[in-house]
């Protein structure tokens, strides 16, 4: 067992180094941050001076080695735009993204479980068709449009909720609802398909022939077996959300990582982009690990295997 975890840790470390290397190279292909910082004031002499200040005059492999060494000290570099350590800026924004992700996903879970199971049980009926349409609409609806609509209705017309920002617990409701609408669609469809497949299994037929009622079949046997793909997609979605829901954060001025990352790319703020990607990679790995740990709990057969 310990060998398994050691191998897993080593593999994760290798992936992290590869991701760091890849993003290191990719951001430098975006363009010259010195040019963007100087803008209309850029002169050839000043460009050379600023590049030297930023350490960009070194060969790329030298810059990368220096960066890896600084990472080992916990130093993610200084933000070109803010003038402060990149990790501090990220640390300020990351909890906001976690909060929005948790609430957004949380709001999506119960409706999607209810709708997914209902659609599966009522497969082929008008209700199933209706629920499928609702789920598809949820997935297809642009978050930008939905977010603005919610603001116009709840903030401008009804004056019930704030338009944006992060002042109070009410501030999170609209952005979280916007996110959850997309996920309800996605999760419902996944769970529906999974429950349908399980309900067609031999042991379910056996349970019915033994006289077990449908409710018991569904909740005591089928759902537990159908939940695995659902857990996988929820875990993966959470990991992706931790990279920041850019559009939602922009519409609602939610101070999260997504909008920060886009700003950093536009500003060629290398340190912040790198910090965002590395932290996101770690989060996705942690989420994958959590999902892997959940599997044997949900399905003991996996532990035996």
């Amino acid at each position, binding site marked *: 067992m310990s060998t398994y975890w050691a191998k897993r840790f080593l593999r994760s470390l290798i992936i992290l180094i590869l991701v760091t290397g890849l993003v290191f190279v990719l951001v430098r292909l975006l*363009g*010259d941050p*010195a*040019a*963007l*910082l*100087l*803008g*209309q*004031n*850029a002169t050839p002499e*000043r*460009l050379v001076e*600023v590049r030297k*200040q930023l350490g960009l005059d070194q060969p790329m492999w030298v810059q990368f080695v220096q960066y890896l060494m600084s990472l080992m000290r916990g130093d993610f570099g200084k933000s*070109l*735009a*803010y*003038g*402060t350590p990149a990790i501090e*800026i990220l*640390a*300020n*924004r990351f*909890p*906001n993204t*976690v*909060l929005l992700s*948790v*609430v957004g996903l*949380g709001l999506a879970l119960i409706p999607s479980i209810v709708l997914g199971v209902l659609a599966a049980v009522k497969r082929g009926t008008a209700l199933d068709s209706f629920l499928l349409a609702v789920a598809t609409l949820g997935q297809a609806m642009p978050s930008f449009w939905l977010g*603005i609509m919610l*603001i*116009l209705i709840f*903030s*401008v017309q009804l*004056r019930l909720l*704030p*338009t*944006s*920002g*992060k*002042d109070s*617990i009410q501030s999170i409701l609209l952005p979280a609802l916007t996110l959850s609408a997309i996920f309800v669609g996605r999760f419902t469809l996944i769970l529906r398909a999974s429950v349908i497949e399980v309900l067609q299994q031999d042991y379910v037929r056996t349970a019915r022939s033994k006289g077990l009622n449908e409710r018991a079949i569904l909740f005591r046997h089928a759902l537990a077996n159908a939940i695995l793909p659902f857990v996988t997609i929820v875990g993966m979605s959470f990991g992706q959300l931790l990279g920041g829901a850019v559009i939602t954060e*922009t*519409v*609602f*001025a939610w*101070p999260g990582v997504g*909008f*920060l990352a886009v*700003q950093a790319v*536009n500003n*060629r703020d290398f340190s912040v982009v790198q910090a965002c990607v590395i932290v996101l990679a770690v989060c996705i790995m942690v989420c994958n690990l959590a999902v892997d740990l*959940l599997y*044997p*709990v*949900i399905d*003991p057969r996996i*532990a035996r295997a």
Partner: protein
Amino acid sequence: MKNQESSGQPNILLTRREFIKLGLTAGGAGLIAACAPVGAPVAAPTASSGQVAPSPVATAGADTSVLKVGIGESADWLSPNMTNRSPSFSVYYAMFESLAWNDRFTGEVKPMLAKSWKVLDDKVTWELDLQEGVKFHNGEDFDAESVKVTFDYLLNDKPPDTPYQRVQTATLDRVEIVDKYKVRLITQKPYVIFPRIFNEVYIYPAKHFAKVGPEGFAAEPVGTGKYRLTQWDKGVKTVLEKFDGHWGWGGKALINQLEFRGYPEDATRVAALKAREADIIQGLPPDDAEGIKAEGLNVQWTPLAQAMVLLMDTKQDSPLKNKLVRQALSYGIDVDSLIKNVMLGYGEKLNGQVLPKSVFGYNPNLQPYPYDPDKAKQLLKDAGFGDGLSLDFDISQGRYTKQKEVNEAIAGQLAKIGVKTNINLLEWGVFVDKLFVKGTPTPLNYIGWNYFSAFDADFVLPRYVSTSPFFPAAPKQMDDLLAQSEAEFDVKKREQLIHQFTEVMRDEAPSVFLFQAPDVFGVNPRVQNFKPTPDNGIHFEEMTVTT
């Protein structure tokens, strides 16, 4: 204990029920913890530091008035000499002050923290007498040491933003303290407009800056302005409170508290105004102006000191090296129509020059090129392009108001005179790289030349001489006139030289002079005495709010 594995039972650390219980408990605890304020808002480093609760609205002049300002991006950069970002301009104007102030409407340089200045006979030593009795927000005195520490920071650290660029252009060499309220700024070469640079540099408190350093100051900014920082939720809001110890320069601060919030999305910013969450929003899209008025709100605007031009590349072997072709494009673009139909009236036509009215050197005698497509076609024919020509056209994205629509309209107008354009939409960084770094612009480029905070012709005109990559075809006369104006200390004579320059420039037409970009504001009627200014920021003097 029975070995579970040997009995064939799975070695499960937790049962399903235990895991679910643990998960719910952990999730609930995590949610409660996450709901707590994260990264507690920064309190200002003043003697009475601490968060100030927002005050209820009261009648004009009362101590508890609050003004909420919606801007395009959160004001997260409050070290103005390190990072001179436009989202923070309004906050800079409220919190910080400079040695001098360039009047936003007349272009005149007026005393601020320096009460007077003169250039000595050597033409490189500027001697400034400083105001006495001025306090920083943290109680420190403003004096010669503050000036020296501020400029020494720029000279030593060379931060890559506008204040240092200006100081470098001025060839500032060193700062000498003569006495507590007198300093000398010495340049390497004579620089006649050096006083204009003063407004670009905000003065820092010497002791506080020396103690915390540049990074520390970026976290704990302190100025001498009418407002001090009391709460700073980065990415969310910035709150300033009236500084009762202000020394009295300029108009009075009559509003107790200013709250700045960033709304990156235009639709959200407009919604915030309509929902009365914001009292003033900057960057109101012209398309939303009528909707705002229909809700009983006001729209105010001003032309910015930013000249939108169609920059023409005369360096390459292109048709635009020919003056007749450049003039043809100037006659072929209907700027009035662009302003009326695309900008919906929000914009002010440039008068045959690249200088807006509020900038020193503006020539009141020049007229814009009239829209005359027939003349444009004739000029093209005279230049040998009677059958038309094709030009690439670079436009950046997301930088200027309605830039895509304006340029599509321009492309349509040029097509009517036989000039086919191939539009390239470029991300801003790529556009800057191409235009300013690699020096490989395409034949046509849409750009806005800024003049704030210097408000002087010399910040743009040097781009239109033969040594500049933007106009290598410039005639010697333009080179000579600019050089003379840069050496002329007499203000009136300098102005005349600039006027002559702009007259030649109009004829040469190195750019199509379009319009001054607008700064449009949505304003709640409870805000009184708001006067938009052409410097991309808001000034709060004499402004009041009513219930």
